[in-house]
């Protein structure tokens, strides 16, 4: 996939195994055709702030990543006049109250704790995909 392709879902996740599970769950419902996976916050920011990228319908953001972490990505996006309209869903293992609070303070659109149980995880991912890619009307 080149940066000129339409990206519907931008998955920012450093753990390749976790990313594999997310993509697997989305594929089952045919939601992964326009998915771009980047492996850390730095890569995500350079993709999102490059002039010739398309605006994704939703960003799935992991919090704990090396170099630039998810919270930093969220802060950069939500403080940018143009980028702040992109829906961001935090997808994390952390159930810590302060992470939830901080994410919402920064303007996150949803906060999902990844369940350990794969059936629940797959359902959560499919729900997110359906809602943000099919149901939700993002700003043009």
């Amino acid at each position, binding site marked *: 996939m080149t940066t000129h392709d339409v990206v519907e879902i931008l998955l920012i996740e450093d*753990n390749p*195994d*976790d990313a*594999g*599970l997310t993509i*697997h769950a989305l594929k089952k419902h045919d939601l992964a055709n326009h998915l771009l996976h980047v492996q850390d916050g730095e890569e995500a920011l350079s993709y999102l702030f490059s002039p010739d990228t398309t605006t994704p319908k939703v960003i799935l953001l992991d*919090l*704990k990543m090396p170099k630039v972490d998810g919270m930093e990505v969220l802060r950069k996006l939500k403080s940018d006049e143009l980028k702040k309209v992109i829906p961001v869903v935090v997808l*994390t*293992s*952390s*159930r*810590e109250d302060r992470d939830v609070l901080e994410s919402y303070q920064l303007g996150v659109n949803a906060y999902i704790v*990844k*369940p*350990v*149980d*794969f*059936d629940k*995880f*797959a359902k959560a991912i499919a729900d997110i995909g359906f809602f943000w890619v099919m149901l939700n009307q993002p700003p043009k």
Partner: protein
Amino acid sequence: MFEKEGLILFNHAPCGYHLIDEDGVIINMNDTMLGWLGYEREEIIGKKRFSDFIHADRDAADRMIATLAKNEEHHTEMQLTRKDGETFPVVMGTMSPEGFSDPAVRMFSTLDNSRCHEALERIKRLDQELEAFSYSISHDLRAPLRSIDGYSKILQEDYADQLDKEGQRVLNVVMNNARRMGNLIDDLLDFGRLGRKVLQRKPVNMAMIVNTVLQNLRDQKPDREIEVRIGDLLAASADADMMRQLWFNLLGNAFKYSGQEKVARIDVRSYMLGNREICYEIKDNGVGFDMQYAGKLFGIFQRLHKMQDFSGTGVGLAIVKRIVSRHGGRVWAQAAVGEGATFSFTLPVEE
């Protein structure tokens, strides 16, 4: 009589003493206090105001001394400045001038509070470390578990034709254990978090909480026949979130351990125990337990039943106990094998 001895006691006491006149000027100070401040007697007596040593601006320091002098029972914490510029924490109190030869003179006693402060700092540091530790557990331990469960599931679904019955069974064992460990981690974190959470006491409508929790539990097992009788449930002053969790765990247990009864019966009621405690009681007609092991009931990771018979991590009642004791109450259980169990807990009545 004993004038000399009195002076020696005054100077060698483990706490600092000093006297000020009506202008706040120091008219006497014992050796202990002089040593802490790092001055010679001649540098201070009749020359310095005590507020000069308080690490705060002059007005604030004067106000502190005035407040202290007015309020004899009260001890005030403040920082004093040594001759070398270093500061150290103290607790200071004063005595009534009644019986003094000059009623305008005030006498103060001072305790060096450095060790207490150091201990507090250490606790704060440990608390931060603990928080970082549990944060890391919540994040780093769950991710690999999700992979174990997830990829086993993919194997089971997408490669089903290459796995025989035994292969399927083995994979199920792997997944069940991954999920179980996930639950253990969640429960353990809940338990840890409880100890640090600030208690927010407010009047709590127990009847409402019990009804909501019961509805929740019924929704999880819609095909079970469960008769619940709810008696009078007195309101209490407690932390509402914690109460929800407490009832959820206790009623959840009543549901779980009566699962083999054709008709499960659960009775919930409350009554006053003397005039200082409310006692809440949850009675079920389930499998009960052997009172011989009652002492283990509320310990963390303690279970009195086999995993095959009843699921669970052994954290639920430990959480119950912690919630109750944080509220200043007690919890206990009465049971017999095959004859159900009755759990009781008390909450103190707010004065």
